[in-house]
């Protein structure tokens, strides 16, 4: 059966601002199964961004435990965590976050740079990924020479550079129009069909319902409900 790639156990993240404590995430538990298409859904201010940072092992929780590929991230050194994260999770950001003075291809190679891969290997992988996102002829373009949709496709290619198990996409279509957004989503679906675990963070329930098979509904820093798709119907399960 499927086993979880990422597990959050009763995870909380508090921010301290002067005398007040902001409970951005307050006791969330979730488990991301391998090969699943997960949506973390919630309105702005619900804590879903913090949830995403925790899910992506970008942030260390105030309380609770996060397991990435079976490792408790609290027990990892900074460099071990960076290494593991770079290998296991590919990130896609709402505003693409491409490095402006690197070409599309160099942007795609960047995550491989941090994994110390051979140059030929990187080159071949970058070419392959450019082809996958249908941008083979745009490899030498700089981000500002690409449209938003193209930039996000470069970002998708970049997220795949180290062949991660999980793609974590934070509002991947948030800065795109409907049509280009749909194309980006279809790429993510394709990747999911090829076996990648996809996690998207969104505030748009339609998007979540249209693409995901598991939806975590976040409200006030807690998981409000979890729904899973079986066949064509949605079923609520106990968190």
């Amino acid at each position: 059966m499927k086993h979880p790639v990422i597990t959050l156990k009763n995870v909380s993240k508090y921010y301290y601002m002067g005398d007040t404590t902001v409970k951005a995430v307050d006791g969330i538990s979730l488990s991301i199964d391998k090969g699943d298409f997960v949506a973390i859904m919630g309105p702005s201010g619900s804590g879903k961004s913090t949830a995403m940072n925790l899910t992506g092992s970008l942030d260390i929780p105030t309380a609770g435990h996060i397991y990435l590929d079976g490792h408790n991230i609290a027990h990892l050194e900074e460099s071990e965590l960076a290494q593991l994260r770079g290998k296991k999770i590919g990130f896609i950001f709402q505003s693409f976050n491409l490095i402006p003075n690197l070409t599309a291809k160099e942007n795609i190679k960047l995550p491989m740079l941090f994994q110390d891969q051979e140059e030929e290997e990187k080159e071949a992988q970058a070419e392959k990924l450019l082809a996958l996102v249908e941008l083979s002829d745009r490899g030498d373009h700089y981000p500002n020479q690409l449209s938003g949709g193209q930039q996000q496709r470069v970002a998708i290619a970049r997220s795949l550079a180290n062949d991660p198990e999980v793609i974590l996409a934070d509002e991947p279509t948030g800065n795109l129009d409907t049509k280009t957004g749909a194309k980006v989503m279809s790429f993510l679906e394709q990747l999911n069909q090829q076996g990648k675990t996809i996690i998207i963070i969104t505030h748009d329930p339609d998007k979540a319902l249209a693409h995901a098979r598991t939806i975590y509904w976040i409200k006030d820093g807690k998981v409000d409900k979890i729904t899973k798709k079986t066949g064509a119907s949605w079923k609520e399960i106990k968190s």
Partner: protein
Amino acid sequence: MYQYIRLALSNLAHRGLRSLLTLVGIFIGIAAVVALISLGNGLQEAITGQFATLSADRLVIQNAGDAFGPPGAGSIAKLTDHDKKIVASTSGVSRVLSRYVRIGRMDFNKIAGFEFLSSFPSEQDDFDYFVESFKLEAAEGKIPSADERGTIVIGSGFTENTYGKPLKVGTSVTIQGKSFEIIGILKETGSFQFNTAIFMAEDDLKKIFNIENEIDFIVAQVTDLKQVDNVAEAIKRALRKDRNEKEGSETFSVESPLQALSAINTILIGINAVIAGIAAISLMVGGVGVANTMYTSVLERTREIGTMKALGAHNRDILKVFMTESALLGLVGGIGGALIGLILAFAVSGIASHALGGITLAVTISYPLISASILFAFILGLFAGTLPAIKASKLNTVEALRS
């Protein structure tokens, strides 16, 4: 590493103007150091060359006010034949020459110029000694004998441009209202004073300047080189006694040319120290400039740093990215500065050679110096970038992404 260099280069190019301005600080420092040292040897040689024709076993007796100035100006007591006799009778002195150097008006081809006029000794024996010890040789014409009058020998530095028409052997020129025939043109000597001087018989020179019982300076040849200082003291004592002067308030000076040389060397070392100090300050400011630019860059690229961290960059990777950039700034600054320094050195040398006629200010390219300067700039850049790079590497990923 290549990837990091590529990344750093594109980042620096991206901030073109700012990178360039940052580099200027390093340029100035390194260029100053390189130009200074490249010219230093040449400058020393050029100045030492002026004294090459003088030697350590010769003493020069001048009026006290005349040191380094044109003779005859501002002195109270004049040197006379009487003084010459005193010097000659001092033990340890083998030969005494009286010398005259004046600035006089020369007219030729309807152009008037002011030239250094120098005397040939009047005794044939002294004359030969003078010609031999100053290595005067005729390139054209000949060196006259001591008893010739109305003729001159000119230095090699007179070109066609000096008086509009070439000064050739056999040409007559007017000096201080009297006509003289050029009988010889000297080969170039190591001394630009000689190269731009006109030599004439002592009698002629005295006549055209109405000099009677007066000598511009007395040259005393010392028998034993080791006794130079003692002989100088003895001459001083004798002249003091004759003039009834107290030690410390003499109206004359007795100097070995090498003393003057060492004084000039001291000045040169002083000038070098000042320029080196300025270069050091400039380099320090340059380093601060690099640090400042890197800090700004870290602030501006916070989100980029966050992104790289999310993509799996370790803290040390981020450190490498920023250190590479600042080290490259240093390296490029060093290479550029060294080039500018060399260009500057050649330019100064060219201008000096042009403006000073006979003087040649040689540029010595020292590869160890250039490599050391570039290496220093590189290390400076690396050093200046350390703190900003550490700051960048320690940024919190989530906060960096949010910015």
